[in-house]
């Protein structure tokens, strides 16, 4: 078997591994508030979210045919650059999961590819204006808009239902949270699974297995990407769910609905206006907004600060790992040995981190809400 085919197989496997970590990492966005307010049991929440992520992968009509489109020179996207970018993104997803911090998987992927492209062709391979337009401005706008929207939502909510029996009100908002969690999960599937399909399709085109400038992904790519994100979601990165659901502040069902429903409305409006925002930034901003509007001191601002630091570091950290991965791969020339060694190293690192976390408590979603 020639090394081109082996590298292609490694890239496809790495893309699916990234898709899994994407679901694992981002499950919190859709289910954390529902689990925290006991609208849904943890395992029920991740199962529902996984099914809707799977379905969402088949709904959207358009697959992202480029990764980091408009940010890096498309002519430089080779299988090695894609591989290095994916490794950068997976590394960052695993690291932030380890510390229980929500961060954007899409920004991590862009960061990884930017770093790899930079290592491959220098600074002129990266378009600063694209980076500003597609990463930096949305990263600033998403949390601020979602924070304000969710804050306004919870104040209106308390005005509307504040004088009613708490039992009935909580029951009503728990029901609403099931709808908003479902909508968010479906939306996540339509967005994020498509990215992996785009990555694999691009790798197939780059290798010559697929012809054309913008070919449709083969059915096996669609099914495998949908399955990987659904399995990742089903595993549910418990540490991030715990951070968003209970560690930032203890939320009531109305706050959970304001954060989730308000956040979903912000995300879908942005998508409609052609200004897509990060799900993680929007939902985290909305969670903080719904908490701060009720009582400013209830929010653990130190933890919120750590989350913001993780967001700031996402792009450069993934870029550094992407660039290093590209550099190490090139040391082995066109041979598949470099990607094989890097993949095995990342796998070993992930296993060690997972084992360390397991010793301290639940790592995936099997635990009760107060674990």
């Amino acid at each position, binding site marked *: 078997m020639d090394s081109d085919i082996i590298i292609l197989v490694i890239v496809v496997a790495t893309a699916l591994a990234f898709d899994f970590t994407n679901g694992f990492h981002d499950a919190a966005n859709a289910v954390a508030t529902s689990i925290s307010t006991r609208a849904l049991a943890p395992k029920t929440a991740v199962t529902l979210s996984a099914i809707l992520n799977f379905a*969402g992968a088949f*709904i*959207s*009509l*358009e697959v992202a045919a480029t990764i980091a489109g408009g940010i890096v020179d498309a002519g430089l996207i080779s299988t090695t650059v894609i591989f290095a970018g994916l490794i950068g993104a997976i590394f960052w997803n695993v690291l932030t999961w380890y510390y229980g911090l929500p961060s954007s998987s899409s920004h991590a992927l862009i960061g990884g590819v930017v770093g790899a492209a930079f290592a491959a062709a220098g600074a002129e391979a990266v378009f*600063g*204006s*694209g980076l*500003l*337009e597609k990463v930096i*401005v949305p990263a600033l*706008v998403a949390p601020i*808009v*979602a924070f*304000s*929207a*969710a804050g*306004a*939502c919870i104040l*209106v*909510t308390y005005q*509307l*239902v504040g004088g*009613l*029996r708490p039992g*009935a*009100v909580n029951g*009503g*908002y728990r029901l*609403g949270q099931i*709808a908003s969690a479902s*909508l968010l999960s*479906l*939306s996540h599937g*339509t967005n994020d699974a498509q990215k992996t399909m785009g990555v694999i399709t691009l790798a197939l085109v780059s290798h010559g297995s697929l012809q054309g400038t913008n070919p449709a992904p083969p059915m096996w790519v669609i099914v495998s990407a949908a399955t990987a994100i659904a399995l990742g979601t089903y595993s549910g990165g418990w540490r991030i769910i715990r951070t968003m659901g209970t560690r930032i502040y203890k939320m009531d069902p109305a706050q959970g*609905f*304001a954060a989730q*429903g*308000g*956040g*979903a*409305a*912000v995300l*879908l*409006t*942005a*998508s*409609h*206006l*052609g*200004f897509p925002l990060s799900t993680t930034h929007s939902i985290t901003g909305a969670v903080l907004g719904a908490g701060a509007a009720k009582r400013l001191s209830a929010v653990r601002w130190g933890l919120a600060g750590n989350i913001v630091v993780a967001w700031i570091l996402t792009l450069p950290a993934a870029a550094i790992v992407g660039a290093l991965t590209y550099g190490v791969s090139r040391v082995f020339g066109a041979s598949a040995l470099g990607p094989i060694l890097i993949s095995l190293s990342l796998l070993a690192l992930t296993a060690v981190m997972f084992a360390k976390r397991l010793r301290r408590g639940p790592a995936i979603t099997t635990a009760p809400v107060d674990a």
Partner: protein
Amino acid sequence: MTAAIDSDALLELVWAAPLAALTVTIAWGLVVFGSTRAAGARRQGRTASAVVHLGVAAFGAALFTGAVVFGLIIMTAKG
């Protein structure tokens, strides 16, 4: 560098996104408010009040369903 940013879309987002969020919140709030008040009125034998509050809940439910359907259309139509 600044020319790359679609400032019109950004400005529209700043007012439209919170408005959409508030619409969804008020819609579901009306469902919770109307159904809770209707249940209370029914228990006290105030039929007219129960019917009015059920109407409020139904209006909220219709608005919420409309918002969800619009969300689904956005998801399927995006490109």
